[in-house]
C-alpha cells in the first residue's frame, strides 16, 4: 500500500473536475476518478446515454494515469432529491434540486462510497473554498471567481462533510482553470460548460416536468380580477417570470407583464405590469430548515448579506433566528424583487457562506404576498 493520501474525485467529464483531478495528482495524492450516474435516461431501446461524458472521464483518467470507475446513485437520487423536487412543484413552489443533490448525493452517498474505497478525501470541481479555523472547524468560502462561485449550491453542507472535501479549483478563476487544462493538454480542455440541473438540460424543462406532473391549465388574472388569458399549469411559472405569458402590452404604456403571484387553491396565476411591479417587492421573508455550515456563530439577531436565488448580487439583510433554531425571519435592507418560495435563502458574512434555509413566504408591509 502506498502511504499517499487517497482522494476520490467526482469526475463529470467536464473541464473543472478534470483539472481538479490533474492538480491533485500533481500535488502527490493517490487519485481515483469516479463518474456518477444519478439519473436513468435509458431510452426505450435500452441505450443509456451519459455515455459521452463517461468516455471523456475515461480519456482524461487515462491521460493522468489514474483508475476510474462509474457508480450509480439513481435510486438514492430519486428517493432523496427527485421526490422532494416533485413534491415542491405540486405545492406550487419552485424548488432548487441542485442544493439537495449536493447535500444528499454528491457529498453524502458519494462520500460514503469514497470512504468505502478507503479515501481520505473526496474532491469535486466545484468553485468554492475552505478555511480551517483555530478549533479545526472548516468554513465554506466563496470562490475567487465570483462569476462561478457555487457556494449557493453547497450551502447545506456541514463542517463534518467539509472535513472530507477538497476543492482544488475553488481558488482559481475559470480562465485559469481552462489555461491549466490547455497546458496539461487535457482531452476536455475546450469542452463547453454544462448547464442546468443534474437530470435535465434547461431547454426542455417544461416538457420534462409535464411527464411527471399533470398540467392543469387555468386563468391568468390581475389582482383587480381582470382575466388576461390562460396559463398552462402553475408549475410552469415562477415569480417574476416574464417570458411565455403570451400577453403583450396593451397600447398606452407598452409595459411587459410579469408573474406576480399564484393561488394554488383556485389554480390562478396572477400577473402584473412592469418589471418594478410593486407586488413583486418584499420587505421580509420567512424561511425554514435553517442549517449552518459551521454552526451558528452569529447569534439570534444579526446583520449580514444574502442571496435568495443563484446568480444574484448579495443584498443586505437582518436575520432573526427563531428560538427553535429551524426558522428564520429575514428583513431586507431594501425591498427585494421576486422572492420565490421553494428557493434557497443563503446567508453570507463577507466571503463566508454561513448556511441555508428554504424560503416559505415573502411579505410586504406585514402582508403575505400572494405567492402560493
Amino acid at each position: 500500500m502506498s502511504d499517499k493520501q487517497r482522494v476520490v474525485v467526482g469526475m463529470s467529464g467536464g473541464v473543472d473536475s478534470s483539472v481538479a483531478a490533474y492538480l491533485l495528482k500533481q500535488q502527490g495524492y493517490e487519485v481515483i476518478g469516479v463518474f456518477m450516474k444519478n439519473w436513468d435516461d435509458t431510452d426505450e431501446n435500452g441505450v443509456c446515454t451519459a455515455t459521452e461524458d463517461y468516455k471523456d472521464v475515461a480519456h482524461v483518467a487515462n491521460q493522468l494515469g489514474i483508475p476510474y470507475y462509474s457508480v450509480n446513485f439513481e435510486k438514492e437520487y430519486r428517493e432523496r432529491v427527485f421526490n422532494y423536487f416533485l413534491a415542491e412543484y405540486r405545492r406550487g413552489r419552485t424548488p432548487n434540486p441542485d442544493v439537495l443533490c449536493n447535500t444528499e448525493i454528491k457529498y453524502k452517498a458519494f462520500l460514503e462510497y469514497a470512504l468505502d474505497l478507503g479515501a481520505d478525501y473526496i474532491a469535486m470541481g466545484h468553485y468554492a473554498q475552505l478555511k480551517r479555523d483555530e478549533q479545526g472547524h472548516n468554513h465554506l468560502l466563496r470562490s475567487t471567481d465570483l462569476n462561478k462561485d457555487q457556494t449557493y449550491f453547497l450551502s447545506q453542507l456541514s463542517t463534518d462533510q467539509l472535513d472530507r472535501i477538497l476543492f482544488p479549483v475553488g481558488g482559481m478563476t475559470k480562465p485559469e482553470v481552462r489555461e491549466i487544462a490547455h497546458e496539461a493538454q487535457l482531452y476536455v480542455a475546450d469542452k463547453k460548460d454544462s448547464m442546468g440541473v443534474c437530470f435535465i438540460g434547461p431547454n426542455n424543462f417544461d416538457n420534462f416536468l409535464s411527464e411527471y406532473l399533470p398540467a392543469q391549465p387555468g386563468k391568468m388574472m390581475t389582482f383587480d380580477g381582470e382575466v388576461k388569458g390562460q396559463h398552462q399549469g402553475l408549475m410552469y411559472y415562477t415569480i417574476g417570470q416574464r417570458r411565455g405569458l403570451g400577453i403583450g402590452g396593451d397600447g398606452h404604456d407598452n409595459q411587459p407583464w410579469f408573474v406576480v403571484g399564484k393561488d394554488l387553491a383556485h389554480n390562478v396565476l396572477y400577473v402584473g405590469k412592469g418589471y418594478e411591479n410593486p407586488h413583486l417587492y418584499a420587505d421580509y421573508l420567512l424561511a425554514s430548515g435553517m442549517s449552518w455550515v459551521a454552526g451558528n456563530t452569529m447569534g439570534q439577531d444579526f446583520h449580514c448579506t444574502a442571496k435568495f436565488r443563484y446568480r444574484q448580487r448579495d443584498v443586505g439583510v437582518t436575520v432573526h433566528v427563531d428560538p427553535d433554531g429551524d426558522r428564520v425571519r429575514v428583513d431586507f435592507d431594501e425591498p427585494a424583487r421576486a422572492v420565490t418560495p421553494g428557493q434557497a435563502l443563503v446567508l453570507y458574512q463577507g466571503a463566508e457562506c454561513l448556511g441555508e434555509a428554504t424560503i416559505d413566504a415573502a411579505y410586504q408591509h406585514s402582508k403575505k404576498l400572494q405567492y402560493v
Partner: protein
Amino acid sequence: MEEVYLDNAATTPISSAVLAELTDRYQHVFGNASTLYGLGRAANQVLEQARHTMATSIHADDEEIVFTSGGTESDNTAIIKTAEARQALGNHLITTAVEHEAVLKSMAYLEERGFRVTYLPVDETGQLSLADLENALDDETILVSIMSVNNEVGTRMPIHEIGERLKNHQAWFHTDAVQAYGLEDIDVKRDHIDMLSTSAHKINGPKLLGFLYRQKDLQFSSYLLGGDQEDKRRAGTENVPAIAGFATAVAALDASERTQRAERFQAFKLQILQQFKKHQIEVKVNGTLDQHTSPHILSLWFQGISTYVLQNNLDLEGIAVSGGSACTAGNLAPSHVLTALFGKQSPRLEESIRLSFGQATTSSEIEIFTTAVIKIIRRLAARRS
C-alpha cells in the same frame, strides 16, 4: 503490487505456446489460404491441420468446422441463419432466460421478424427443467439453443439429455459452448448436437476467433456476404496464423489436462470458502458447489456489500474480478442471469461478484484474493460500526 487475475470467463491471457506459434506463423505463413501458389497452399495446409484439431476435440468431422470471428458470430449465425433457412417448417424457437447476449439478442431479432421464442426459466441454481423443455416443444419448433455452461454462475445444462430428446424431433439443437470448450468433455455425436459455438480467447488463444460446428447435413447460408471461403459457409479471408495458435491452445487441452484443471479449480473454490468460513465472512454461492456447476466459475454473494464497492476495492489492490457487464456509461447493468435465478428484487443482483479461474491461476493468487476480501470487509464493517 502483484496483479491477480480472476476473470478468466471474460478472457484469458495467451499461453506461451500459443504466442510462439502465432509469432512463427505470422512470420512464415502469411499467405491467403484461397490462393493457388506455394504460399497459399502452405497456408491452406496449416488451416486444414487446425480444422482437424478442432474437429477431433469435439468428435466431429473436419468438414463440420467453420472458422468465425468468435462466439458472438457463431451464435448469431447458428440462430438467425438457421431460422431463416427453416421458416417453412415452423416459426418457433426455444432457448433459456440465462443465455449470453449473443443468443438472446439474436432471438430478439427473430421475434421482431415474426418468430415465436420460448425462454425457458431456471431454478435458483441456474438449472433448467427438462419437463419445461418438453412442454415448450411443438410441431413448429425449428431450433433449440441452450448453452452448455452458463457464463455468470457456471451452471452446466443437461446437454446430453436435451440432445437425446431432440434427436427425433425436427428442431435442430444448437449449444453455445463458449464456457465449456476446453474444460468439458464434448462429443457432438454422443450428445446429438447439431451446432456448437466456441471462442478461442477463453482458452488462452487469440481474440476475435472461434468456430461454429455445424453438422454436415444442415443447409443454411453464410451470415457474411463475400468470398467463398470455408466452403461458402463463412466469407472473409481466414486468419490462418491465429487459427494455428487456436489449434495449439486446443491441443493443450487433452482429457488429462481437462481433468487436472477441473480438480485444481474445484480446490480453489473450497480454499476460498474455507478461508471465508474460518474468518467468519458471510458469503453465499450463487449456483451450486457440486458437479452441476462448472469448476472454473464461482459466483459469490456478500450480503450488504455492494458490487461496486467490493470490485473497485479489489481493483485498487490489483485484483481483477467481474461485477457483471457495464453499460456504456460504465454502470453495472442488473444481471439478467441473477434476475432469472433470484428475481428482480433480490439483493444478490447488487451484491455479487464472479470469480473465474484459468490455466494461469495459482493457489497463491487465490490466497491474495481471500486475504484482500477479508481485509476489505473488516474495514467496511469497522467504518459502519
